[in-house]
């Protein structure tokens, strides 16, 4: 029997109970991450990709709550635990968070504290998760900084985040996330705020570290270029739901869902300016969270919507013959 996936999320729903009503930020998300692989979650702002990531670590801010679904995490010993049912601040959850699953953010200052040196922060994290002496933890912290390409790591241990440049701060955050050798790294738009040359360096670094540790990555992004560079599998989200799931090659070369197709067409492609100066657009905009369409969330903007059906029927995630999954009525009769 093949091993269970490292992380398996099924029918995850995370809702925010605000005074004005319930916002269903995540409303039916399924995917799996295998060891040593990279899964990209692709979507525009408000599609629920960040809330999905935060749900896995159970760090959703109030008034948000994971209301249903399973988040099955395979521990080191092979046993499987459902993160969705663990107490948020319980011992087990705290051991997983930061130790087995680490997370990095777009803004490094959301994981680095401003008043402690980066060395102290990394050493503290190591001591929290591992049974090491202080000096061994210090050596490990230096190693971690070296590994993320921080020159002069021993001296920089004593520096505070504000003394580092943006790119170096990003590296310090990655070192902090990786110091306990997590088996899954969740990266929420880690390169969005960076310049292209720094972004390229950080992506290379992350790929290298992944090979070294056989770590899995869950990479949240809206940038198709980044997806093309690093993903093995891709999940496309729209309005809180997974609308398509497949390998990176399928997503780029044979996208099935009209939203994915439209998204790929609307990005300016290098070298295509001679042919067509106008970009294909997706009409309208993402609906307001309180005004979700009754049927398929994308129906009002979809060029291929079937009159009378797409606006009323909520499509199920259909698995096609090649294993590709798509949530669209156009494919409902092609289920494998």
């Amino acid at each position, binding site marked *: 029997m093949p091993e269970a996936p490292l992380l398996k999320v099924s029918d995850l729903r995370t809702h925010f109970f605000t005074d004005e009503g319930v916002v269903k930020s995540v409303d039916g998300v399924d995917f799996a991450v295998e060891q040593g692989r990279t899964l990209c979650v692709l979507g525009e702002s408000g599609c629920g990709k960040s809330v999905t990531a935060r749900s896995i670590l159970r760090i959703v801010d109030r008034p948000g709550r994971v209301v249903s679904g399973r988040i099955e995490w395979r521990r080191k010993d092979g046993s499987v635990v459902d993160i969705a049912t663990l107490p948020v601040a319980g011992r087990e959850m705290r051991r997983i968070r930061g130790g087995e699953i680490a997370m990095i953010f777009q803004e490094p200052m959301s994981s680095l504290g401003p008043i402690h040196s980066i060395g102290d922060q990394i050493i503290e994290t190591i001591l929290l998760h591992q049974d090491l002496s202080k000096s061994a933890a210090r050596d490990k912290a230096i190693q971690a900084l070296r590994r993320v390409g921080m020159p002069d790591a021993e001296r920089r241990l004593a520096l505070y985040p504000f003394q580092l440049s943006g790119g170096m701060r990003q590296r310090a955050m990655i070192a902090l996330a990786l110091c306990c050798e997590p088996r899954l790294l969740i990266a929420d738009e880690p390169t969005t705020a960076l310049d292209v040359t720094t972004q390229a360096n950080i992506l290379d670094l992350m790929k290298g570290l992944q090979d070294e540790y056989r770590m899995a990555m869950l990479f949240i992004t809206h940038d198709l270029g980044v997806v093309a560079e690093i993903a093995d599998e891709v999940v496309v989200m729209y309005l809180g739901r997974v609308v398509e799931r497949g390998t990176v090659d399928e997503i780029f070369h044979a996208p099935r869902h009209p939203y994915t197709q439209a998204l790929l067409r609307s990005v300016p492609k290098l070298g295509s300016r001679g042919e067509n100066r106008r*970009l294909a657009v997706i009409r309208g905009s993402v609906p307001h969270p309180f005004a979700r369409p009754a049927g398929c969330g994308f129906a009002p903007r979809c060029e291929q919507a079937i009159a009378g059906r797409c606006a009323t029927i909520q499509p199920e995630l259909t698995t096609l013959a090649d294993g590709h999954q798509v949530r669209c009525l156009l494919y409902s009769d092609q289920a494998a």
Partner: protein
Amino acid sequence: MTEPTTLLDVRDLKVHFPIQKGVLRRVVGHVKAVDGVSFAIRAGETLSLVGESGCGKTTTGRAVLRILKPSAGEILYHPKDGPPVDLAGLDKRALRPYRRDIRMIFQDPQSSLNPRLPVLEIVGQCLRTNGIANGTELEHRVADLLRRVGLRPEYLRRYPHAFSGGERQRIGIARALALSPRLVVADEAVSALDVSVQAQTLNLLQDLQAEFALTYLFIAHDLSVVEHISDRIAVMYVGRIVELADTATLFARPAHPYTEALLSAVPIDDPRLRGSRARIRLGGEVADPARPPPGCAFHPRCAHADARCRAEIPVLREVVPGHQAACHHAESLTLRGILPEAA
């Protein structure tokens, strides 16, 4: 075909910010944000300024708009009628007539619209203060502007919070266009937008350019967007322009090692071509504009640097007609672009 007319001629522009220290606020140095930038914008074209954060592209844009006072240099503006004027030297009052001709679109549609004003005010304010329209006439004008940018004229009395990010950016564009400007400075105007909204906005900017014969100074860091929209591109590094060429040439045959590195870092948008492009990894960090290294500011990171680069600042010069580069070795280097030569 007639020679393209120059709309704006920037010559040796410098913007230095003093660094002050101590209780006496003594000036201990200068951040040379823009340090000798020269370029010309032709009427009707889109010129893009690209570069990494801190390279001075935004400061250059702000100096052109005269939100900032340049420390030195000229900004020669060619009005529709009359001789060119140097905007760099004008005071507030003398600038007024030209403020109508050069307008700005901001990056963040969230913070650039006053949340307490309805759209009618946001877009119409400049029409009223310039004595162009008020009352019903103003409403008609604003409604018309909204229609032009693809918003419904009924939204006149709504407040910014009632609009999505993309719609807000359209309001910002309508405001920039209200006074029928000739030059629009768009500072990262689409960077904060989602992919689908970004496409709509880029199309709109191009349509409006054709309709109103606008000239754009487009400031951005996303090279695929820049490639899509620009006629010519100026690449900046630590306060200076290091290369200026038309878009196709720059992407096919860069003449400055920094441009080559920048292009090679653009993500390849096809997973099948992964790893097909040789990437140039820049070592070290961007130089500090308060203490730039001697000689070429790029030399500590450049693979081709020699003694001359460490001592002598290269000037921006024409390498081949229409293609300028600020590199001592521009002629002898064979640098790689990321797009094939245009046929």
